[in-house]
Protein backbone atom coordinates (compact mmCIF):
# COMPACT_ATOMS: atom_id res chain seq x y z
CA UNK A 1 0.00 0.00 0.00
CA UNK A 2 2.72 2.44 0.97
CA UNK A 3 4.55 1.70 -2.27
CA UNK A 4 1.42 2.66 -4.19
CA UNK A 5 1.27 5.95 -2.32
CA UNK A 6 4.95 6.54 -3.06
CA UNK A 7 4.32 5.71 -6.70
CA UNK A 8 1.43 8.19 -6.92
CA UNK A 9 3.53 10.87 -5.30
CA UNK A 10 6.31 10.22 -7.78
CA UNK A 11 3.85 10.58 -10.67
CA UNK A 12 2.52 13.82 -9.28
CA UNK A 13 5.99 15.22 -8.93
CA UNK A 14 7.11 14.15 -12.37
CA UNK A 15 9.98 16.39 -13.42
CA UNK A 16 9.15 18.27 -16.58
CA UNK A 17 11.12 18.83 -19.73
CA UNK A 18 13.57 16.03 -19.08
CA UNK A 19 12.95 14.06 -22.23
CA UNK A 20 14.79 16.39 -24.53
CA UNK A 21 16.75 19.55 -24.22
CA UNK A 22 17.76 22.27 -26.64
CA UNK A 23 18.30 25.98 -26.65
CA UNK A 24 15.57 28.04 -28.28
CA UNK A 25 16.62 31.14 -30.16
CA UNK A 26 13.98 33.66 -31.15
CA UNK A 27 15.49 36.20 -33.54
CA UNK A 28 13.52 39.42 -34.02
CA UNK A 29 14.21 40.00 -37.72
CA UNK A 30 14.78 37.82 -40.81
CA UNK A 31 18.30 39.28 -41.16
CA UNK A 32 19.15 38.24 -37.63
CA UNK A 33 17.70 34.77 -38.26
CA UNK A 34 19.86 34.30 -41.36
CA UNK A 35 22.92 35.54 -39.46
CA UNK A 36 22.30 33.10 -36.62
CA UNK A 37 21.83 30.21 -39.04
CA UNK A 38 25.01 31.15 -40.91
CA UNK A 39 26.94 31.18 -37.65
CA UNK A 40 25.67 27.79 -36.42
CA UNK A 41 27.75 24.67 -36.96
CA UNK A 42 26.39 22.24 -39.53
CA UNK A 43 23.36 20.22 -38.45
CA UNK A 44 23.23 21.74 -34.98
CA UNK A 45 20.39 24.20 -35.52
CA UNK A 46 16.86 23.29 -36.65
CA UNK A 47 14.31 25.79 -37.91
CA UNK A 48 10.97 25.78 -36.09
CA UNK A 49 7.84 26.92 -37.92
CA UNK A 50 4.55 25.66 -36.47
CA UNK A 51 6.37 22.75 -34.82
CA UNK A 52 3.78 20.13 -35.73
CA UNK A 53 6.42 17.96 -37.41
CA UNK A 54 9.79 18.99 -35.93
CA UNK A 55 8.70 18.70 -32.30
CA UNK A 56 7.41 15.15 -32.88
CA UNK A 57 10.71 14.23 -34.54
CA UNK A 58 12.59 15.66 -31.56
CA UNK A 59 10.35 13.78 -29.09
CA UNK A 60 10.88 10.52 -30.94
CA UNK A 61 14.64 11.10 -31.21
CA UNK A 62 14.60 11.25 -35.00
CA UNK A 63 16.12 14.72 -34.61
CA UNK A 64 18.26 16.06 -31.79
CA UNK A 65 19.32 19.60 -32.59
CA UNK A 66 21.31 21.53 -30.02
CA UNK A 67 19.57 24.72 -30.96
CA UNK A 68 16.15 25.46 -32.38
CA UNK A 69 15.57 28.68 -34.25
CA UNK A 70 12.04 29.97 -33.89
CA UNK A 71 10.36 31.90 -36.72
CA UNK A 72 7.67 33.25 -34.40
CA UNK A 73 8.79 36.86 -34.66
CA UNK A 74 9.24 36.88 -38.42
CA UNK A 75 6.85 39.29 -40.20
CA UNK A 76 5.63 36.48 -42.44
CA UNK A 77 2.10 35.87 -41.25
CA UNK A 78 0.40 37.46 -44.21
CA UNK A 79 -1.77 36.58 -47.17
CA UNK A 80 -2.25 38.95 -50.07
CA UNK A 81 -3.53 38.88 -53.61
CA UNK A 82 -1.47 40.56 -56.31
CA UNK A 83 -3.81 40.53 -59.27
CA UNK A 84 -4.77 36.88 -59.58
CA UNK A 85 -1.68 35.57 -57.85
CA UNK A 86 -1.70 34.73 -54.16
CA UNK A 87 1.30 35.42 -51.91
CA UNK A 88 1.35 33.59 -48.58
CA UNK A 89 3.89 34.33 -45.89
CA UNK A 90 5.67 31.13 -44.87
CA UNK A 91 4.65 31.28 -41.19
CA UNK A 92 0.95 32.01 -41.72
CA UNK A 93 -1.07 29.29 -39.97
CA UNK A 94 -2.94 27.01 -42.39
CA UNK A 95 -6.11 27.77 -40.43
CA UNK A 96 -6.06 31.38 -41.68
CA UNK A 97 -5.88 30.20 -45.30
CA UNK A 98 -8.66 27.73 -44.66
CA UNK A 99 -10.98 30.45 -43.34
CA UNK A 100 -10.33 32.73 -46.33
CA UNK A 101 -13.29 32.69 -48.73
CA UNK A 102 -11.29 33.85 -51.73
CA UNK A 103 -8.75 31.06 -51.31
CA UNK A 104 -11.60 28.56 -51.26
CA UNK A 105 -13.14 30.00 -54.42
CA UNK A 106 -10.04 30.66 -56.51
CA UNK A 107 -7.77 27.82 -55.44
CA UNK A 108 -10.27 25.11 -54.44
CA UNK A 109 -7.66 22.34 -54.63
CA UNK A 110 -5.36 24.15 -52.23
CA UNK A 111 -8.25 24.71 -49.84
CA UNK A 112 -9.16 21.01 -49.96
CA UNK A 113 -5.57 19.93 -49.34
CA UNK A 114 -5.31 22.30 -46.36
CA UNK A 115 -8.56 20.93 -44.90
CA UNK A 116 -7.04 17.46 -45.07
CA UNK A 117 -4.10 18.37 -42.83
CA UNK A 118 -4.64 17.15 -39.26
CA UNK A 119 -7.35 18.89 -37.24
CA UNK A 120 -8.39 22.55 -36.77
CA UNK A 121 -6.22 22.82 -33.65
CA UNK A 122 -3.24 21.44 -35.54
CA UNK A 123 -3.87 23.76 -38.47
CA UNK A 124 -3.81 26.69 -36.04
CA UNK A 125 -0.04 26.11 -35.85
CA UNK A 126 0.99 24.25 -39.03
CA UNK A 127 2.33 26.37 -41.91
CA UNK A 128 2.96 26.17 -45.66
CA UNK A 129 6.62 27.06 -45.12
CA UNK A 130 6.98 24.19 -42.67
CA UNK A 131 5.43 21.72 -45.11
CA UNK A 132 7.91 22.70 -47.80
CA UNK A 133 10.89 23.00 -45.44
CA UNK A 134 10.28 19.58 -43.87
CA UNK A 135 9.43 17.93 -47.22
CA UNK A 136 7.49 15.09 -45.62
CA UNK A 137 6.46 12.29 -48.00
CA UNK A 138 3.25 12.16 -45.96
CA UNK A 139 2.31 15.79 -46.63
CA UNK A 140 -1.07 16.27 -48.30
CA UNK A 141 -0.06 19.79 -49.30
CA UNK A 142 3.03 19.13 -51.37
CA UNK A 143 1.29 17.43 -54.35
CA UNK A 144 -1.12 20.38 -54.54
CA UNK A 145 1.70 22.94 -54.34
CA UNK A 146 3.45 21.12 -57.20
CA UNK A 147 0.27 20.96 -59.28
CA UNK A 148 -0.37 24.68 -58.76
CA UNK A 149 3.24 25.45 -59.73
CA UNK A 150 3.81 27.35 -56.48
CA UNK A 151 7.02 29.38 -56.26
CA UNK A 152 9.13 29.42 -53.14
CA UNK A 153 10.75 32.69 -52.14
CA UNK A 154 13.94 31.93 -50.25
CA UNK A 155 15.89 34.38 -48.13
CA UNK A 156 19.57 33.82 -47.46
CA UNK A 157 22.90 35.55 -46.79
CA UNK A 158 23.25 36.52 -50.45
CA UNK A 159 19.71 37.87 -50.84
CA UNK A 160 16.50 36.44 -52.18
CA UNK A 161 15.93 33.72 -54.76
CA UNK A 162 12.74 32.22 -56.14
CA UNK A 163 12.19 28.71 -57.48
CA UNK A 164 9.31 26.43 -58.41
CA UNK A 165 8.48 24.21 -55.44
CA UNK A 166 9.19 21.11 -57.53
CA UNK A 167 12.87 22.13 -57.70
CA UNK A 168 13.13 22.98 -54.01
CA UNK A 169 11.83 19.64 -52.70
CA UNK A 170 14.26 16.76 -52.57
CA UNK A 171 13.37 13.95 -50.19
CA UNK A 172 12.06 13.46 -46.68
CA UNK A 173 13.43 16.26 -44.45
CA UNK A 174 15.62 17.44 -47.31
CA UNK A 175 15.30 20.45 -49.62
CA UNK A 176 17.77 22.37 -51.71
CA UNK A 177 17.75 25.22 -49.19
CA UNK A 178 21.23 26.22 -48.05
CA UNK A 179 22.11 25.91 -44.35
CA UNK A 180 21.48 29.62 -43.74
CA UNK A 181 18.42 29.98 -45.95
CA UNK A 182 14.81 30.43 -44.90
CA UNK A 183 11.51 30.21 -46.76
CA UNK A 184 9.99 33.68 -46.74
CA UNK A 185 6.82 33.12 -48.74
CA UNK A 186 5.02 30.99 -51.30
CA UNK A 187 3.57 32.43 -54.45
CA UNK A 188 0.68 30.86 -56.32
CA UNK A 189 0.98 32.40 -59.80
CA UNK A 190 -2.71 32.28 -60.62
CA UNK A 191 -6.15 31.25 -59.55
CA UNK A 192 -6.82 27.78 -60.99
CA UNK A 193 -9.60 25.21 -61.12
CA UNK A 194 -8.00 22.47 -59.05
CA UNK A 195 -8.82 19.39 -57.00
CA UNK A 196 -7.16 17.42 -54.23
CA UNK A 197 -8.27 13.89 -53.39
CA UNK A 198 -6.88 11.35 -50.97
CA UNK A 199 -7.53 7.80 -49.87
CA UNK A 200 -6.85 6.69 -46.33
CA UNK A 201 -7.53 3.64 -44.19
CA UNK A 202 -9.19 5.97 -41.67
CA UNK A 203 -10.47 9.38 -42.75
CA UNK A 204 -8.88 11.24 -39.85
CA UNK A 205 -5.60 10.84 -38.04
CA UNK A 206 -4.03 8.82 -40.78
CA UNK A 207 -1.57 9.31 -43.58
CA UNK A 208 -2.93 9.14 -47.13
CA UNK A 209 -2.23 5.96 -49.06
CA UNK A 210 -2.41 8.05 -52.19
CA UNK A 211 -3.00 11.76 -52.78
CA UNK A 212 -3.90 13.13 -56.21
CA UNK A 213 -3.69 16.82 -57.11
CA UNK A 214 -4.88 18.19 -60.44
CA UNK A 215 -4.95 21.77 -61.67
CA UNK A 216 -5.66 23.64 -64.87
CA UNK A 217 -3.34 26.64 -65.09
CA UNK A 218 -3.90 29.58 -67.45
CA UNK A 219 -0.42 29.18 -68.96
CA UNK A 220 0.63 26.28 -71.21
CA UNK A 221 0.97 23.36 -70.75
CA UNK A 222 -2.14 24.04 -68.63
CA UNK A 223 -2.91 20.66 -67.06
CA UNK A 224 -0.82 19.58 -64.12
CA UNK A 225 -1.09 16.34 -62.18
CA UNK A 226 0.90 15.51 -59.06
CA UNK A 227 0.88 12.52 -56.74
CA UNK A 228 1.49 12.16 -53.03
CA UNK A 229 1.91 9.07 -50.91
CA UNK A 230 5.02 7.92 -52.73
CA UNK A 231 8.69 7.78 -51.77
CA UNK A 232 10.84 9.76 -51.56
CA UNK A 233 8.42 12.63 -52.11
CA UNK A 234 5.41 13.94 -54.03
CA UNK A 235 6.04 14.24 -57.75
CA UNK A 236 4.58 15.57 -60.94
CA UNK A 237 3.41 13.24 -63.70
CA UNK A 238 4.23 15.07 -66.92
CA UNK A 239 3.65 11.93 -69.01
CA UNK A 240 0.01 11.80 -67.89
CA UNK A 241 -0.38 15.57 -68.31
CA UNK A 242 0.80 15.32 -71.94
CA UNK A 243 -2.25 13.22 -72.82
CA UNK A 244 -4.58 16.11 -71.96
CA UNK A 245 -4.70 18.51 -74.85
CA UNK A 246 -7.62 20.78 -74.16
CA UNK A 247 -9.33 22.50 -71.25
CA UNK A 248 -12.13 19.95 -71.45
CA UNK A 249 -10.51 16.65 -72.37
CA UNK A 250 -12.75 13.86 -73.60
CA UNK A 251 -13.56 10.88 -71.40
CA UNK A 252 -11.10 8.83 -73.45
CA UNK A 253 -8.31 11.34 -72.84
CA UNK A 254 -9.09 11.42 -69.13
CA UNK A 255 -8.99 7.63 -69.01
CA UNK A 256 -5.69 7.53 -70.91
CA UNK A 257 -4.19 10.12 -68.56
CA UNK A 258 -5.35 8.07 -65.56
CA UNK A 259 -3.81 4.89 -66.99
CA UNK A 260 -0.58 6.72 -67.78
CA UNK A 261 -0.45 8.09 -64.22
CA UNK A 262 -0.96 4.61 -62.77
CA UNK A 263 1.76 3.20 -65.02
CA UNK A 264 4.33 5.90 -64.24
CA UNK A 265 3.87 6.29 -60.49
CA UNK A 266 6.61 4.55 -58.50
CA UNK A 267 4.90 3.27 -55.38
CA UNK A 268 6.16 1.07 -52.62
CA UNK A 269 4.24 -1.42 -50.49
CA UNK A 270 3.98 -0.55 -46.81
CA UNK A 271 1.64 -1.10 -43.90
CA UNK A 272 -0.94 1.27 -45.38
CA UNK A 273 -1.29 -0.28 -48.84
CA UNK A 274 0.39 -2.53 -51.34
CA UNK A 275 2.05 -1.17 -54.42
CA UNK A 276 -0.56 -2.70 -56.73
CA UNK A 277 -3.48 -1.38 -54.67
CA UNK A 278 -2.01 2.12 -54.83
CA UNK A 279 -1.71 1.81 -58.59
CA UNK A 280 -5.38 0.87 -58.88
CA UNK A 281 -6.30 3.78 -56.63
CA UNK A 282 -4.34 6.24 -58.73
CA UNK A 283 -6.13 5.29 -61.93
CA UNK A 284 -9.53 5.86 -60.34
CA UNK A 285 -8.58 8.97 -58.42
CA UNK A 286 -6.87 10.75 -61.32
CA UNK A 287 -9.98 10.26 -63.45
CA UNK A 288 -12.23 11.62 -60.70
CA UNK A 289 -9.94 14.54 -59.89
CA UNK A 290 -9.78 15.55 -63.55
CA UNK A 291 -13.56 15.43 -63.86
CA UNK A 292 -13.99 17.48 -60.68
CA UNK A 293 -11.50 20.05 -61.92
CA UNK A 294 -13.35 20.32 -65.23
CA UNK A 295 -16.63 20.77 -63.35
CA UNK A 296 -15.03 23.63 -61.43
CA UNK A 297 -14.10 25.58 -64.54
CA UNK A 298 -16.12 28.68 -65.22
CA UNK A 299 -18.78 27.85 -67.79
CA UNK A 300 -18.32 29.41 -71.22
CA UNK A 301 -20.77 32.30 -71.65
CA UNK A 302 -22.64 30.66 -74.55
CA UNK A 303 -23.37 27.53 -72.52
CA UNK A 304 -25.06 29.47 -69.74
CA UNK A 305 -28.78 29.06 -69.41
CA UNK A 306 -30.61 32.23 -70.31
CA UNK A 307 -31.76 33.95 -67.14
CA UNK A 308 -35.46 34.45 -66.72
Amino acid sequence: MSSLVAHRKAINRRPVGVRVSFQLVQPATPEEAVRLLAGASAGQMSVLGGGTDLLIDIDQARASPRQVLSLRKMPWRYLRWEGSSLVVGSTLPLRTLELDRRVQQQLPGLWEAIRDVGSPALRARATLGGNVGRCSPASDLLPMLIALDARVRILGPSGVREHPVDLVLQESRKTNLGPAELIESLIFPSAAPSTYMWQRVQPVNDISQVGVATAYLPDAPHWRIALGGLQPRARRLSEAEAVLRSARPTHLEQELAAQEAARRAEFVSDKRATESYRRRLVAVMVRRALQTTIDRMPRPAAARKPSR
Partner: protein
Amino acid sequence: MTDAALALHINGQSRRFASVPDAERLLDTLRWRAGLKGTKEGCRTGDCGACTVLVGGEPTLSCLLLSREVGDEPVTTIEGVAAVPIGQAVIKAFAEAGAVQCGYCTPGFVVALAAQLGRSKSPPDVESLVDGLEGNLCRCTGYRAIERAVALARKAVQ
Protein backbone atom coordinates in the same frame (compact mmCIF):
# COMPACT_ATOMS: atom_id res chain seq x y z
CA MET B 1 21.17 25.16 -21.61
CA THR B 2 19.36 28.14 -20.22
CA ASP B 3 16.47 27.60 -17.88
CA ALA B 4 15.19 31.15 -17.67
CA ALA B 5 12.00 32.33 -15.99
CA LEU B 6 8.84 32.42 -18.05
CA ALA B 7 5.76 34.63 -17.78
CA LEU B 8 2.43 33.48 -19.20
CA HIS B 9 -1.09 34.84 -19.19
CA ILE B 10 -3.26 31.91 -18.11
CA ASN B 11 -7.02 32.05 -17.49
CA GLY B 12 -6.92 35.81 -16.99
CA GLN B 13 -4.04 35.74 -14.55
CA SER B 14 -0.38 36.61 -15.02
CA ARG B 15 1.69 33.63 -13.97
CA ARG B 16 5.45 33.51 -13.59
CA PHE B 17 7.46 30.30 -13.52
CA ALA B 18 11.09 30.05 -12.45
CA SER B 19 13.63 28.15 -14.55
CA VAL B 20 11.61 26.68 -17.40
CA PRO B 21 13.67 24.66 -19.91
CA ASP B 22 13.47 25.89 -23.52
CA ALA B 23 12.22 22.51 -24.72
CA GLU B 24 9.24 22.45 -22.35
CA ARG B 25 5.76 22.15 -23.90
CA LEU B 26 2.84 24.27 -22.85
CA LEU B 27 1.04 21.05 -21.80
CA ASP B 28 3.74 20.31 -19.21
CA THR B 29 3.94 23.89 -17.96
CA LEU B 30 0.18 23.92 -17.44
CA ARG B 31 -0.04 20.55 -15.71
CA TRP B 32 3.17 20.43 -13.72
CA ARG B 33 4.00 24.06 -13.02
CA ALA B 34 0.63 25.85 -13.04
CA GLY B 35 -1.08 22.84 -11.43
CA LEU B 36 -3.88 22.89 -14.00
CA LYS B 37 -4.44 19.17 -14.37
CA GLY B 38 -7.64 19.46 -16.37
CA THR B 39 -5.66 19.54 -19.62
CA LYS B 40 -4.76 15.94 -20.45
CA GLU B 41 -1.79 14.35 -22.11
CA GLY B 42 -2.98 11.81 -24.68
CA CYS B 43 -0.84 10.91 -27.67
CA ARG B 44 1.66 13.78 -27.53
CA THR B 45 1.86 13.66 -31.33
CA GLY B 46 -1.00 15.99 -32.24
CA ASP B 47 -3.49 13.25 -33.10
CA CYS B 48 -5.92 12.99 -30.19
CA GLY B 49 -6.91 16.51 -29.09
CA ALA B 50 -6.93 15.68 -25.34
CA CYS B 51 -4.46 18.52 -24.69
CA THR B 52 -6.49 21.18 -26.51
CA VAL B 53 -6.33 24.66 -24.93
CA LEU B 54 -7.11 28.09 -26.31
CA VAL B 55 -4.15 30.24 -27.31
CA GLY B 56 -5.26 33.68 -28.40
CA GLY B 57 -8.82 32.30 -28.45
CA GLU B 58 -7.98 29.62 -31.02
CA PRO B 59 -8.04 25.89 -30.13
CA THR B 60 -4.42 24.75 -30.10
CA LEU B 61 -2.65 21.51 -29.22
CA SER B 62 -0.61 22.26 -26.11
CA CYS B 63 1.54 19.13 -26.59
CA LEU B 64 3.04 20.57 -29.78
CA LEU B 65 3.65 24.09 -28.57
CA LEU B 66 6.77 25.23 -26.76
CA SER B 67 5.84 27.30 -23.71
CA ARG B 68 8.27 29.98 -24.83
CA GLU B 69 6.53 30.24 -28.19
CA VAL B 70 3.29 31.39 -26.56
CA GLY B 71 4.57 34.92 -25.94
CA ASP B 72 1.93 37.46 -24.97
CA GLU B 73 -1.02 35.45 -26.23
CA PRO B 74 -3.60 34.62 -23.56
CA VAL B 75 -3.94 30.93 -22.71
CA THR B 76 -7.31 29.52 -21.62
CA THR B 77 -7.46 26.00 -20.24
CA ILE B 78 -10.50 23.86 -19.41
CA GLU B 79 -10.43 25.45 -15.93
CA GLY B 80 -10.83 28.88 -17.57
CA VAL B 81 -13.50 27.65 -19.98
CA ALA B 82 -15.44 26.09 -17.10
CA ALA B 83 -15.60 29.50 -15.40
CA VAL B 84 -17.60 31.20 -18.16
CA PRO B 85 -21.29 30.65 -19.08
CA ILE B 86 -20.65 29.10 -22.51
CA GLY B 87 -18.21 26.61 -21.00
CA GLN B 88 -20.69 25.75 -18.27
CA ALA B 89 -23.43 25.21 -20.86
CA VAL B 90 -21.17 22.83 -22.81
CA ILE B 91 -20.21 20.89 -19.68
CA LYS B 92 -23.86 20.58 -18.68
CA ALA B 93 -24.78 19.38 -22.17
CA PHE B 94 -22.05 16.70 -22.05
CA ALA B 95 -23.34 15.47 -18.70
CA GLU B 96 -26.98 15.46 -19.80
CA ALA B 97 -26.26 13.65 -23.07
CA GLY B 98 -24.17 10.98 -21.36
CA ALA B 99 -21.24 12.06 -23.50
CA VAL B 100 -18.72 11.34 -20.77
CA GLN B 101 -17.58 7.83 -20.00
CA CYS B 102 -13.97 7.61 -18.85
CA GLY B 103 -13.79 11.38 -19.27
CA TYR B 104 -10.17 11.62 -20.34
CA CYS B 105 -10.96 13.21 -23.71
CA THR B 106 -13.76 15.43 -22.37
CA PRO B 107 -11.75 18.57 -21.46
CA GLY B 108 -10.39 18.70 -25.02
CA PHE B 109 -13.89 18.34 -26.49
CA VAL B 110 -15.33 20.99 -24.18
CA VAL B 111 -12.58 23.52 -24.96
CA ALA B 112 -12.84 22.94 -28.73
CA LEU B 113 -16.65 23.16 -28.73
CA ALA B 114 -16.86 26.18 -26.41
CA ALA B 115 -14.41 28.05 -28.67
CA GLN B 116 -16.64 27.43 -31.68
CA LEU B 117 -19.80 28.44 -29.85
CA GLY B 118 -18.20 31.58 -28.48
CA ARG B 119 -16.93 32.78 -31.83
CA SER B 120 -20.13 34.31 -33.17
CA LYS B 121 -23.52 35.41 -31.86
CA SER B 122 -25.45 32.86 -33.88
CA PRO B 123 -23.77 29.46 -33.51
CA PRO B 124 -22.95 27.43 -36.65
CA ASP B 125 -25.13 24.40 -37.46
CA VAL B 126 -24.61 21.13 -35.60
CA GLU B 127 -22.85 19.53 -38.56
CA SER B 128 -20.12 22.14 -38.77
CA LEU B 129 -19.75 22.15 -34.99
CA VAL B 130 -19.20 18.38 -35.13
CA ASP B 131 -16.75 18.89 -38.03
CA GLY B 132 -14.83 21.26 -35.80
CA LEU B 133 -14.30 18.39 -33.36
CA GLU B 134 -12.64 16.16 -35.96
CA GLY B 135 -9.34 16.43 -34.09
CA ASN B 136 -10.76 15.13 -30.81
CA LEU B 137 -10.74 11.39 -30.33
CA CYS B 138 -12.93 9.44 -27.91
CA ARG B 139 -12.45 5.71 -27.45
CA CYS B 140 -15.49 5.18 -25.19
CA THR B 141 -18.66 6.80 -26.39
CA GLY B 142 -18.77 5.96 -30.07
CA TYR B 143 -19.39 9.69 -30.62
CA ARG B 144 -23.20 9.48 -30.86
CA ALA B 145 -23.65 10.85 -27.34
CA ILE B 146 -21.11 13.57 -28.08
CA GLU B 147 -23.11 14.59 -31.15
CA ARG B 148 -26.19 14.82 -28.94
CA ALA B 149 -24.21 16.94 -26.50
CA VAL B 150 -23.20 19.28 -29.32
CA ALA B 151 -26.84 19.77 -30.29
CA LEU B 152 -27.84 20.35 -26.67
CA ALA B 153 -25.03 22.84 -26.09
CA ARG B 154 -25.89 24.69 -29.26
CA LYS B 155 -29.48 25.00 -28.16
CA ALA B 156 -28.45 26.19 -24.70
CA VAL B 157 -26.31 29.08 -25.92
CA GLN B 158 -28.69 30.24 -28.64
